[in-house]
Protein backbone atom coordinates (compact mmCIF):
# COMPACT_ATOMS: atom_id res chain seq x y z
CA UNK A 1 0.00 0.00 0.00
CA UNK A 2 1.22 3.47 -1.01
CA UNK A 3 0.34 6.30 1.34
CA UNK A 4 -0.18 9.74 -0.17
CA UNK A 5 0.48 12.12 2.69
CA UNK A 6 -2.31 14.64 3.22
CA UNK A 7 -0.94 17.60 5.12
CA UNK A 8 -3.31 20.13 3.63
CA UNK A 9 -1.18 21.25 0.68
CA UNK A 10 -1.87 20.56 -2.93
CA UNK A 11 -3.79 18.48 -5.35
CA UNK A 12 -3.85 15.03 -3.79
CA UNK A 13 -6.67 13.87 -5.98
CA UNK A 14 -4.67 13.82 -9.21
CA UNK A 15 -1.85 11.81 -7.64
CA UNK A 16 -4.31 9.29 -6.23
CA UNK A 17 -6.11 8.99 -9.57
CA UNK A 18 -2.83 8.39 -11.36
CA UNK A 19 -2.00 5.59 -8.91
CA UNK A 20 -5.50 4.19 -9.48
CA UNK A 21 -4.85 4.08 -13.21
CA UNK A 22 -1.71 2.09 -12.51
CA UNK A 23 -3.76 -0.35 -10.43
CA UNK A 24 -1.68 0.45 -7.40
CA UNK A 25 -3.28 0.15 -4.01
CA UNK A 26 -3.07 3.65 -2.54
CA UNK A 27 -4.70 5.89 -0.01
CA UNK A 28 -4.69 9.62 0.71
CA UNK A 29 -4.59 10.21 4.42
CA UNK A 30 -3.37 12.36 7.28
CA UNK A 31 -3.81 9.51 9.79
CA UNK A 32 -0.50 8.44 11.23
CA UNK A 33 -1.62 4.93 12.10
CA UNK A 34 -2.49 4.37 8.43
CA UNK A 35 0.70 5.93 7.06
CA UNK A 36 2.67 3.91 9.58
CA UNK A 37 1.57 0.70 7.85
CA UNK A 38 2.31 1.92 4.27
CA UNK A 39 5.11 0.29 2.27
CA UNK A 40 5.84 3.44 0.33
CA UNK A 41 5.04 7.12 0.83
CA UNK A 42 4.29 9.92 -1.60
CA UNK A 43 4.71 13.50 -0.47
CA UNK A 44 2.82 15.73 -2.91
CA UNK A 45 2.53 19.46 -2.58
CA UNK A 46 1.57 22.70 -4.19
CA UNK A 47 2.08 26.00 -2.43
CA UNK A 48 4.73 27.67 -0.33
CA UNK A 49 7.65 25.91 1.36
CA UNK A 50 7.30 27.60 4.79
CA UNK A 51 3.56 26.81 4.98
CA UNK A 52 4.24 23.20 4.06
CA UNK A 53 6.96 22.74 6.69
CA UNK A 54 4.75 24.40 9.27
CA UNK A 55 1.93 21.97 8.43
CA UNK A 56 4.28 18.96 8.57
CA UNK A 57 5.64 20.11 11.92
CA UNK A 58 2.31 20.87 13.51
CA UNK A 59 0.73 17.59 12.44
CA UNK A 60 3.72 15.57 13.59
CA UNK A 61 3.95 14.13 10.07
CA UNK A 62 7.50 15.44 9.71
CA UNK A 63 8.69 13.15 12.46
CA UNK A 64 6.75 10.23 10.98
CA UNK A 65 8.22 10.73 7.48
CA UNK A 66 11.78 11.05 8.81
CA UNK A 67 11.42 7.94 10.96
CA UNK A 68 9.81 5.84 8.20
CA UNK A 69 12.60 6.83 5.81
CA UNK A 70 15.18 5.90 8.42
CA UNK A 71 13.53 2.48 8.66
CA UNK A 72 13.91 2.07 4.90
CA UNK A 73 10.47 3.00 3.56
CA UNK A 74 10.72 4.40 0.01
CA UNK A 75 9.56 8.01 -0.37
CA UNK A 76 8.68 10.04 -3.45
CA UNK A 77 8.30 13.81 -3.18
CA UNK A 78 6.45 15.59 -5.98
CA UNK A 79 6.96 19.26 -6.90
CA UNK A 80 6.94 21.17 -3.60
CA UNK A 81 7.07 17.72 -1.98
CA UNK A 82 10.41 17.16 -3.70
CA UNK A 83 11.77 20.49 -2.49
CA UNK A 84 10.79 19.62 1.08
CA UNK A 85 13.18 16.64 1.00
CA UNK A 86 16.20 18.99 1.04
CA UNK A 87 18.05 20.93 3.73
CA UNK A 88 16.49 24.33 3.30
CA UNK A 89 14.66 26.78 1.07
CA UNK A 90 14.94 30.49 0.42
CA UNK A 91 11.22 30.81 -0.27
CA UNK A 92 9.93 33.93 1.55
CA UNK A 93 12.27 33.35 4.45
CA UNK A 94 14.96 30.75 4.99
CA UNK A 95 13.20 27.58 6.15
CA UNK A 96 14.64 24.25 7.20
CA UNK A 97 13.38 21.26 5.20
CA UNK A 98 13.26 17.56 5.98
CA UNK A 99 17.00 17.23 5.40
CA UNK A 100 16.73 13.83 3.73
CA UNK A 101 18.78 14.96 0.72
CA UNK A 102 21.55 17.57 0.50
CA UNK A 103 20.76 20.87 -1.17
CA UNK A 104 19.11 24.23 -1.09
CA UNK A 105 15.98 25.51 -2.85
CA UNK A 106 16.36 28.91 -4.52
CA UNK A 107 14.22 31.15 -6.70
CA UNK A 108 14.65 31.55 -10.47
CA UNK A 109 16.30 34.92 -10.99
CA UNK A 110 14.06 35.79 -13.91
CA UNK A 111 17.10 37.18 -15.71
CA UNK A 112 19.74 35.13 -17.47
CA UNK A 113 23.52 35.57 -17.67
CA UNK A 114 23.21 37.89 -20.66
CA UNK A 115 20.74 40.10 -18.85
CA UNK A 116 17.65 38.91 -20.69
CA UNK A 117 14.42 38.48 -18.75
CA UNK A 118 12.72 35.10 -18.68
CA UNK A 119 9.38 34.02 -17.32
CA UNK A 120 8.85 32.73 -13.81
CA UNK A 121 7.26 30.29 -13.04
CA UNK A 122 8.89 27.66 -15.21
CA UNK A 123 5.58 26.43 -16.55
CA UNK A 124 4.98 23.85 -19.24
CA UNK A 125 6.53 20.80 -20.87
CA UNK A 126 10.27 20.44 -20.85
CA UNK A 127 12.67 17.75 -22.01
CA UNK A 128 13.98 15.34 -19.41
CA UNK A 129 17.77 15.11 -19.71
CA UNK A 130 18.86 11.87 -18.09
CA UNK A 131 22.06 11.99 -16.06
CA UNK A 132 21.84 8.65 -14.31
CA UNK A 133 19.71 6.55 -16.67
CA UNK A 134 20.41 3.48 -14.55
CA UNK A 135 18.26 4.85 -11.71
CA UNK A 136 15.19 2.72 -10.97
CA UNK A 137 12.98 5.76 -11.56
CA UNK A 138 14.18 6.11 -15.16
CA UNK A 139 13.81 2.45 -16.01
CA UNK A 140 12.40 2.09 -19.54
CA UNK A 141 12.32 5.82 -20.25
CA UNK A 142 14.06 6.54 -23.49
CA UNK A 143 13.20 10.10 -24.30
CA UNK A 144 10.46 12.26 -22.98
CA UNK A 145 8.92 15.50 -21.89
CA UNK A 146 7.37 16.25 -18.51
CA UNK A 147 5.16 19.00 -17.11
CA UNK A 148 6.64 21.58 -14.74
CA UNK A 149 5.08 24.38 -12.71
CA UNK A 150 7.44 26.00 -10.21
CA UNK A 151 9.24 29.21 -9.30
CA UNK A 152 11.95 27.69 -7.09
CA UNK A 153 14.50 25.04 -7.96
CA UNK A 154 17.18 22.91 -6.36
CA UNK A 155 20.86 23.75 -6.12
CA UNK A 156 23.12 21.07 -4.73
CA UNK A 157 26.80 20.31 -4.44
CA UNK A 158 26.10 16.60 -4.67
CA UNK A 159 25.80 15.78 -8.39
CA UNK A 160 24.93 12.18 -7.59
CA UNK A 161 21.56 13.32 -6.25
CA UNK A 162 20.46 14.72 -9.61
CA UNK A 163 19.15 11.80 -11.69
CA UNK A 164 17.66 13.89 -14.49
CA UNK A 165 17.44 17.57 -15.23
CA UNK A 166 15.73 20.04 -17.54
CA UNK A 167 17.09 23.15 -19.16
CA UNK A 168 15.32 26.41 -18.38
CA UNK A 169 17.90 29.21 -18.60
CA UNK A 170 19.79 27.22 -15.98
CA UNK A 171 20.05 23.52 -15.21
CA UNK A 172 16.94 22.54 -13.28
CA UNK A 173 17.10 19.29 -11.31
CA UNK A 174 14.03 17.33 -12.39
CA UNK A 175 14.41 13.87 -10.88
CA UNK A 176 16.41 13.50 -7.68
CA UNK A 177 17.21 10.57 -5.46
CA UNK A 178 19.57 8.82 -3.14
CA UNK A 179 19.00 5.40 -1.65
CA UNK A 180 15.26 4.98 -1.26
CA UNK A 181 14.40 8.71 -1.21
CA UNK A 182 13.25 10.16 -4.54
CA UNK A 183 11.68 13.30 -5.86
CA UNK A 184 10.42 14.86 -9.07
CA UNK A 185 10.25 18.62 -9.57
CA UNK A 186 7.64 18.12 -12.31
CA UNK A 187 4.21 16.55 -11.89
CA UNK A 188 4.49 12.91 -13.04
CA UNK A 189 0.72 12.55 -12.68
CA UNK A 190 0.29 15.28 -15.31
CA UNK A 191 3.16 14.34 -17.58
CA UNK A 192 1.56 11.91 -20.00
CA UNK A 193 3.12 8.47 -20.60
CA UNK A 194 6.61 9.53 -19.41
CA UNK A 195 5.26 10.71 -16.07
CA UNK A 196 3.08 7.66 -15.62
CA UNK A 197 6.08 5.41 -16.29
CA UNK A 198 8.12 7.20 -13.60
CA UNK A 199 5.29 6.78 -11.09
CA UNK A 200 5.01 3.14 -12.08
CA UNK A 201 8.75 2.66 -11.60
CA UNK A 202 8.49 4.07 -8.09
CA UNK A 203 5.57 1.79 -7.25
CA UNK A 204 7.40 -1.25 -8.59
CA UNK A 205 10.43 -0.32 -6.55
CA UNK A 206 8.21 -0.14 -3.45
CA UNK A 207 6.84 -3.61 -4.20
CA UNK A 208 10.35 -5.03 -4.67
CA UNK A 209 11.57 -3.51 -1.44
CA UNK A 210 8.52 -4.82 0.41
CA UNK A 211 9.01 -8.32 -0.96
CA UNK A 212 12.63 -8.24 0.05
CA UNK A 213 11.37 -7.48 3.51
CA UNK A 214 13.11 -4.15 3.85
Amino acid at each position, binding site marked *: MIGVIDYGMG*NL*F*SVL*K*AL*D*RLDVEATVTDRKEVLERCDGLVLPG*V*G*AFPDAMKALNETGLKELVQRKVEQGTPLLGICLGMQLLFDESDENTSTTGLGLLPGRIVRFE*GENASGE*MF*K*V*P*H*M*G*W*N*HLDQRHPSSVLLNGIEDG*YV*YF*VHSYYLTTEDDEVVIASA*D*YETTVPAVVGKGHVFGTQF*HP*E*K*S*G*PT*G*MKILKNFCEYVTEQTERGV
Partner: protein
Amino acid sequence: MLTKRIIPCLDVKEGRVVKGIQFLSLRDAGDPVELAKVYDEQGADELVFLDISATHEGRKTMVEMVREVAATLAIPFTVGGGIGSLEDMKSILRAGADKVSLNSAAVRSPELVTEGANYFGSQCIVVAIDAKYDEEVGTYRVYTHGGRRPTEWLVTDWAQEVERRGAGELLVTSMDRDGEKTGFDSGLLETVQQVVGIPVIASGGAGNADHFVDVFQHNRADAALAASIFHYKETSVESVKQVLKENGVHVR
Protein backbone atom coordinates in the same frame (compact mmCIF):
# COMPACT_ATOMS: atom_id res chain seq x y z
CA MET B 1 14.07 24.48 -23.24
CA LEU B 2 10.39 24.83 -22.58
CA THR B 3 8.20 23.63 -25.42
CA LYS B 4 5.41 25.68 -26.94
CA ARG B 5 2.04 24.30 -25.90
CA ILE B 6 -0.96 23.45 -28.09
CA ILE B 7 -4.25 23.61 -26.23
CA PRO B 8 -7.56 22.45 -27.71
CA CYS B 9 -10.60 24.08 -26.14
CA LEU B 10 -13.90 22.29 -25.63
CA ASP B 11 -17.20 24.06 -25.01
CA VAL B 12 -19.29 22.09 -22.56
CA LYS B 13 -22.99 22.59 -21.93
CA GLU B 14 -24.84 20.55 -19.32
CA GLY B 15 -22.06 17.98 -19.36
CA ARG B 16 -21.92 17.59 -23.16
CA VAL B 17 -19.51 19.04 -25.67
CA VAL B 18 -21.29 21.40 -28.05
CA LYS B 19 -20.23 23.26 -31.18
CA GLY B 20 -20.75 20.66 -33.87
CA ILE B 21 -17.88 18.33 -33.14
CA GLN B 22 -17.15 16.02 -36.06
CA PHE B 23 -15.27 13.12 -34.64
CA LEU B 24 -17.24 10.58 -36.58
CA SER B 25 -15.24 7.67 -35.31
CA LEU B 26 -16.36 8.27 -31.75
CA ARG B 27 -19.17 6.31 -30.22
CA ASP B 28 -20.44 9.39 -28.50
CA ALA B 29 -19.34 12.55 -30.22
CA GLY B 30 -20.55 14.79 -27.46
CA ASP B 31 -18.82 13.10 -24.56
CA PRO B 32 -16.16 15.42 -23.11
CA VAL B 33 -14.19 12.56 -21.60
CA GLU B 34 -13.98 10.69 -24.93
CA LEU B 35 -12.90 13.84 -26.73
CA ALA B 36 -10.36 14.68 -24.07
CA LYS B 37 -8.83 11.25 -24.61
CA VAL B 38 -8.63 11.78 -28.37
CA TYR B 39 -6.82 15.08 -27.94
CA ASP B 40 -4.54 13.56 -25.34
CA GLU B 41 -3.60 10.80 -27.79
CA GLN B 42 -2.97 13.36 -30.52
CA GLY B 43 -0.40 15.01 -28.27
CA ALA B 44 -2.34 17.96 -26.84
CA ASP B 45 -0.24 19.57 -24.11
CA GLU B 46 -3.19 20.76 -22.11
CA LEU B 47 -6.94 21.09 -22.45
CA VAL B 48 -9.40 23.83 -21.65
CA PHE B 49 -13.04 23.08 -20.86
CA LEU B 50 -15.31 26.05 -21.11
CA ASP B 51 -18.55 25.60 -19.21
CA ILE B 52 -21.36 27.34 -21.03
CA SER B 53 -24.15 25.76 -18.97
CA ALA B 54 -26.81 28.24 -18.12
CA THR B 55 -28.50 26.26 -15.37
CA HIS B 56 -27.57 25.31 -11.85
CA GLU B 57 -27.99 21.65 -12.77
CA GLY B 58 -25.58 22.11 -15.66
CA ARG B 59 -23.02 23.51 -13.25
CA LYS B 60 -23.27 20.52 -10.98
CA THR B 61 -22.85 18.20 -13.97
CA MET B 62 -19.66 20.12 -14.78
CA VAL B 63 -18.11 19.14 -11.46
CA GLU B 64 -18.94 15.50 -12.18
CA MET B 65 -17.38 15.83 -15.62
CA VAL B 66 -14.22 17.35 -14.15
CA ARG B 67 -13.95 14.41 -11.80
CA GLU B 68 -14.25 11.96 -14.67
CA VAL B 69 -11.78 13.82 -16.88
CA ALA B 70 -9.28 14.00 -14.01
CA ALA B 71 -9.54 10.26 -13.53
CA THR B 72 -8.78 9.65 -17.21
CA LEU B 73 -6.33 12.31 -18.28
CA ALA B 74 -2.59 12.47 -17.53
CA ILE B 75 -2.15 16.02 -18.87
CA PRO B 76 -3.10 19.30 -17.19
CA PHE B 77 -6.52 20.81 -17.79
CA THR B 78 -8.21 24.10 -17.10
CA VAL B 79 -11.88 24.78 -16.47
CA GLY B 80 -13.43 28.15 -17.19
CA GLY B 81 -16.77 29.76 -17.78
CA GLY B 82 -19.02 31.22 -15.13
CA ILE B 83 -16.60 30.81 -12.24
CA GLY B 84 -17.55 33.63 -9.92
CA SER B 85 -16.45 32.82 -6.39
CA LEU B 86 -13.80 31.13 -4.30
CA GLU B 87 -16.37 28.39 -3.67
CA ASP B 88 -16.73 27.78 -7.42
CA MET B 89 -12.96 27.52 -7.72
CA LYS B 90 -12.78 25.12 -4.80
CA SER B 91 -15.37 22.75 -6.20
CA ILE B 92 -13.70 22.64 -9.63
CA LEU B 93 -10.15 22.27 -8.31
CA ARG B 94 -11.15 19.70 -5.70
CA ALA B 95 -12.81 17.67 -8.43
CA GLY B 96 -9.38 17.44 -10.06
CA ALA B 97 -8.94 20.36 -12.46
CA ASP B 98 -5.41 21.78 -12.46
CA LYS B 99 -6.37 25.37 -13.16
CA VAL B 100 -9.43 27.57 -13.24
CA SER B 101 -9.92 30.37 -15.69
CA LEU B 102 -11.58 33.60 -14.58
CA ASN B 103 -12.98 36.16 -16.96
CA SER B 104 -15.97 38.46 -16.28
CA ALA B 105 -15.89 37.71 -12.55
CA ALA B 106 -12.28 38.89 -12.34
CA VAL B 107 -13.22 42.24 -13.88
CA ARG B 108 -16.24 42.55 -11.59
CA SER B 109 -14.23 41.68 -8.48
CA PRO B 110 -10.48 41.69 -9.09
CA GLU B 111 -9.88 40.57 -5.48
CA LEU B 112 -11.10 37.16 -6.65
CA VAL B 113 -7.79 36.76 -8.50
CA THR B 114 -5.86 37.67 -5.35
CA GLU B 115 -7.91 35.33 -3.17
CA GLY B 116 -7.64 32.46 -5.62
CA ALA B 117 -3.89 32.89 -6.00
CA ASN B 118 -3.36 33.09 -2.24
CA TYR B 119 -5.51 30.09 -1.56
CA PHE B 120 -4.54 27.73 -4.37
CA GLY B 121 -1.31 29.23 -5.67
CA SER B 122 -0.77 31.31 -8.80
CA GLN B 123 -0.26 28.23 -10.95
CA CYS B 124 -3.99 27.44 -10.57
CA ILE B 125 -5.27 30.84 -11.65
CA VAL B 126 -5.62 31.67 -15.32
CA VAL B 127 -7.17 34.99 -16.23
CA ALA B 128 -8.97 34.99 -19.55
CA ILE B 129 -8.97 38.35 -21.29
CA ASP B 130 -11.26 39.09 -24.22
CA ALA B 131 -9.96 42.12 -26.05
CA LYS B 132 -10.84 44.20 -29.06
CA TYR B 133 -9.05 47.02 -30.83
CA ASP B 134 -10.45 50.43 -29.90
CA GLU B 135 -9.93 52.92 -32.74
CA GLU B 136 -10.54 55.91 -30.52
CA VAL B 137 -7.82 55.17 -27.99
CA GLY B 138 -5.58 53.39 -30.47
CA THR B 139 -5.12 50.27 -28.38
CA TYR B 140 -6.98 47.22 -27.13
CA ARG B 141 -9.92 47.32 -24.74
CA VAL B 142 -11.08 44.52 -22.41
CA TYR B 143 -14.59 43.15 -22.81
CA THR B 144 -16.64 40.86 -20.57
CA HIS B 145 -19.76 38.74 -20.79
CA GLY B 146 -18.62 36.82 -23.82
CA GLY B 147 -17.51 39.99 -25.55
CA ARG B 148 -20.79 41.82 -25.17
CA ARG B 149 -19.74 44.40 -22.60
CA PRO B 150 -16.88 46.88 -22.97
CA THR B 151 -15.05 47.71 -19.76
CA GLU B 152 -12.98 50.67 -18.60
CA TRP B 153 -9.83 48.55 -18.77
CA LEU B 154 -7.26 48.79 -21.50
CA VAL B 155 -5.61 45.45 -22.07
CA THR B 156 -2.13 46.49 -20.92
CA ASP B 157 -3.42 47.88 -17.62
CA TRP B 158 -5.65 44.91 -16.97
CA ALA B 159 -2.95 42.35 -17.80
CA GLN B 160 -0.55 44.04 -15.38
CA GLU B 161 -3.24 44.37 -12.74
CA VAL B 162 -4.06 40.66 -12.72
CA GLU B 163 -0.38 39.70 -12.83
CA ARG B 164 0.17 41.88 -9.76
CA ARG B 165 -2.77 40.13 -8.10
CA GLY B 166 -1.19 36.75 -8.65
CA ALA B 167 -2.57 35.37 -11.91
CA GLY B 168 -0.32 32.56 -13.12
CA GLU B 169 -1.18 32.78 -16.80
CA LEU B 170 -3.15 34.87 -19.25
CA LEU B 171 -5.47 33.46 -21.87
CA VAL B 172 -5.73 36.29 -24.37
CA THR B 173 -8.55 36.08 -26.91
CA SER B 174 -8.79 38.48 -29.80
CA MET B 175 -12.43 39.34 -30.46
CA ASP B 176 -11.41 40.83 -33.79
CA ARG B 177 -9.95 37.52 -34.91
CA ASP B 178 -12.20 35.03 -33.14
CA GLY B 179 -13.73 32.67 -35.69
CA GLU B 180 -12.06 34.48 -38.59
CA LYS B 181 -9.37 31.85 -39.16
CA THR B 182 -7.00 34.49 -40.48
CA GLY B 183 -4.31 33.93 -37.87
CA PHE B 184 -3.67 34.98 -34.30
CA ASP B 185 -3.79 38.68 -33.47
CA SER B 186 -0.11 39.63 -33.46
CA GLY B 187 -0.76 43.24 -32.44
CA LEU B 188 -2.76 42.26 -29.39
CA LEU B 189 -0.41 39.47 -28.35
CA GLU B 190 2.72 41.58 -28.69
CA THR B 191 1.07 44.32 -26.68
CA VAL B 192 0.36 41.92 -23.83
CA GLN B 193 3.62 39.99 -24.10
CA GLN B 194 5.60 43.21 -23.66
CA VAL B 195 4.05 44.13 -20.34
CA VAL B 196 3.83 40.86 -18.41
CA GLY B 197 6.25 38.25 -17.10
CA ILE B 198 3.76 35.38 -16.90
CA PRO B 199 2.91 32.93 -19.69
CA VAL B 200 0.54 34.14 -22.38
CA ILE B 201 -1.81 31.78 -24.21
CA ALA B 202 -2.88 33.05 -27.63
CA SER B 203 -6.47 32.52 -28.63
CA GLY B 204 -8.71 33.54 -31.50
CA GLY B 205 -7.98 33.32 -35.19
CA ALA B 206 -6.23 29.97 -35.68
CA GLY B 207 -7.06 28.71 -39.16
CA ASN B 208 -4.14 26.48 -40.07
CA ALA B 209 -0.79 25.17 -38.82
CA ASP B 210 1.12 28.11 -40.26
CA HIS B 211 -0.74 30.43 -37.93
CA PHE B 212 0.75 28.53 -34.99
CA VAL B 213 4.21 28.73 -36.55
CA ASP B 214 3.80 32.47 -36.94
CA VAL B 215 2.68 33.13 -33.37
CA PHE B 216 5.48 31.03 -31.89
CA GLN B 217 8.34 31.99 -34.18
CA HIS B 218 7.86 35.60 -33.21
CA ASN B 219 7.48 34.63 -29.57
CA ARG B 220 4.11 36.30 -29.31
CA ALA B 221 2.84 33.57 -26.98
CA ASP B 222 3.93 30.64 -24.84
CA ALA B 223 0.96 28.52 -25.80
CA ALA B 224 -1.82 28.64 -28.36
CA LEU B 225 -5.40 27.60 -28.06
CA ALA B 226 -7.85 26.62 -30.76
CA ALA B 227 -11.27 25.08 -30.95
CA SER B 228 -12.92 24.76 -34.32
CA ILE B 229 -9.92 23.79 -36.46
CA PHE B 230 -9.40 20.77 -34.24
CA HIS B 231 -13.08 19.95 -33.78
CA TYR B 232 -13.85 20.05 -37.46
CA LYS B 233 -10.80 17.93 -38.18
CA GLU B 234 -9.39 20.62 -40.45
CA THR B 235 -6.13 19.66 -38.85
CA SER B 236 -5.03 17.67 -35.83
CA VAL B 237 -2.82 18.55 -32.89
CA GLU B 238 -0.37 16.02 -34.28
CA SER B 239 -0.06 17.63 -37.69
CA VAL B 240 0.18 21.14 -36.23
CA LYS B 241 3.07 19.92 -34.10
CA GLN B 242 4.70 18.30 -37.11
CA VAL B 243 4.63 21.59 -39.00
CA LEU B 244 5.94 23.42 -35.94
CA LYS B 245 8.86 20.99 -35.69
CA GLU B 246 9.69 21.40 -39.36
CA ASN B 247 9.83 25.13 -38.76
CA GLY B 248 12.17 24.86 -35.83
CA VAL B 249 9.62 25.50 -33.09
CA HIS B 250 10.32 23.39 -30.04
CA VAL B 251 7.32 21.18 -29.22
CA ARG B 252 6.75 18.02 -27.24
